[in-house]
């Protein structure tokens, strides 16, 4: 893939001398939604942080649009896990979203009226414009997540890397995120999410990367989400898997019928 937004080459990562990820390599297609899926502690979030340079790589590299991250910083927007932020921080919604513009500004510059318009548009896209003057500690979990998404949108990136955007959000937010994904894809943007809910992977994502300390499988959702691959990823310790495989089987049947 020549124009791949992200190519990961032989990444190895450790946490205090223990290997977390071993020799992970893949490349992803443009204008798709891509899920990184694996059990707890499989290194999904660590992989995303390693790719973004937030955690050190032992070896390997991540290439963005054929370049290093430093050259493509602003084309790549990162959405941290909601729990990793201090939501009692004294700041309002608009100021958080404006942080998406800080990458373009020199340290002494203040956001311009154009920056503010872009931030408001981003809030509109996640239906949070009415909350722009609200303190962030007055928001629900889903609203907090949408503020983080708006922050990333304000950056006007081409590739979005999100750490568990669906974790602990309400139905409204879940729908808002799905709609947003569709909008972004239509604009040729690529979305990579760490995702933990196997029930929704096939529905929400075009591509899947299965991880458990190493790469298990990567490819289109239909190709990758097989019983064999899921067993390899979750090591058969999932009763949920049985339900899931049945459901997968059913949806595949439905698809066949639909066609």
């Amino acid at each position, binding site marked *: 893939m020549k124009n791949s937004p992200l190519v990961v080459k032989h990444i190895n990562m450790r946490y*205090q001398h223990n290997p977390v990820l071993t020799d992970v390599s893949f490349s992803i297609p443009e204008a798709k939604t891509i899920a990184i899926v694996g059990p707890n502690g499989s290194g999904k979030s660590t992989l995303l*942080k390693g790719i*973004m*340079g*937030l955690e050190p790589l032992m070896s390997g590299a991540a290439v963005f649009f054929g370049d290093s991250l*430093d050259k493509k*910083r*602003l084309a*790549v*927007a*990162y959405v*941290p896990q909601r729990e*990793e*932020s*201090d939501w*009692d*921080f*004294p*700041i*309002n919604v608009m*100021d*958080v979203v404006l*942080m998406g513009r*800080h*990458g373009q*500004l020199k*340290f*002494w*510059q*203040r*956001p311009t009226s154009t920056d503010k318009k872009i931030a408001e548009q981003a809030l509109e896209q996640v239906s949070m414009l009415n909350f722009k003057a609200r*303190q962030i500690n007055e928001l*629900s979990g889903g609203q907090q997540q949408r503020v983080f998404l708006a*922050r990333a949108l304000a*950056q006007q990136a081409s590739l979005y890397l999100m750490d568990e955007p669906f974790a602990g959000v309400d139905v409204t937010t879940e729908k808002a995120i799905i709609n947003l994904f569709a909008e972004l894809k239509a604009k040729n943007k690529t979305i990579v999410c760490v995702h933990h809910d196997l029930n929704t992977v096939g529905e929400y994502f075009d591509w899947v990367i299965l991880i458990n300390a190493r790469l298990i499988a990567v490819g289109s959702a239909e190709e990758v989400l097989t019983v064999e691959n899921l067993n390899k990823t979750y090591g058969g310790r999932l009763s949920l898997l049985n339900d899931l495989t049945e459901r997968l089987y059913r949806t595949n049947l439905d698809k066949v019928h639909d066609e």
Partner: protein
Amino acid sequence: MIADIWILATASLVAISCSMVGVFLILRRMSLLGDAISHSVLLGIVLAYLITDSRSIIAMFIGATIIGLVTAWLSNSLHKLGKLQTDASIGIVFTWFFAMGVILVTLYAGKVDIDQECVLYGEIAFAPFDTIIFGGNDIGPRAFWVILGVFLLNITIFILAFNRFKLVAFNSGMAISLGVSVTFWHYLLMTMVSLTTVASFDAVGAILVVALLIIPASTAYLLAKSLKSMLIIAAIYAELSVLIGYALAVVLDSNIAASIGVVSGVLLMITVAVLQWQKKRTPVSVF
């Protein structure tokens, strides 16, 4: 009377400068590191005295800043390499440096013009006697001019780089992802903490400077709606602590710095109590 004004002016600048860097320490959850730096700079000050054999302010600032940054760096390295917990490694480094500082002070007591009591508790009441002569005129206490310089430097840096400090304090991962060097802004903040604590040392001593770094900023954290308002509220609480604390010291004929520390704690407790009382009166709506 003139002496009172110099003391109040010096104490106010000390308290406000400390509270402003304190705001960023609180928001970055690094108040212990502020505590650490304010103690270990003693080693830097003593080393500067011994090496330059003078009371040069510049040498003192350089010595203290270097030791302050080494404290931040070494405790971080101990945590990462030695697998020690963050708070443990900070505790190790600064007590160690402070102990070395104390030993040097006692060893070279004749040579170094530092009084142990003064190091620990500060004696702002003596500040007006140590004045600077500029162009043949007595322009006021050295402690005042030193802290004024640091205060103006802090204000300039915070105003210039306000958005960077805000971003790094809010979410360092987000900052890194935007290409902002979190390391640079971290060590710049640590430099400012070092300079501020050195400049405050004469006045309030190594222990009470911690109170001024942490307490007004913590009170402001409970009330503020924005970073700007947190800085202003912290400064107001700091100034109130100075005014009430000074009055208390006069009435009780006690140590001024300690009285300021006591008052800032009392103001924090009152604020917490009032907030709790308000919470009880207005039931929190559940979504």
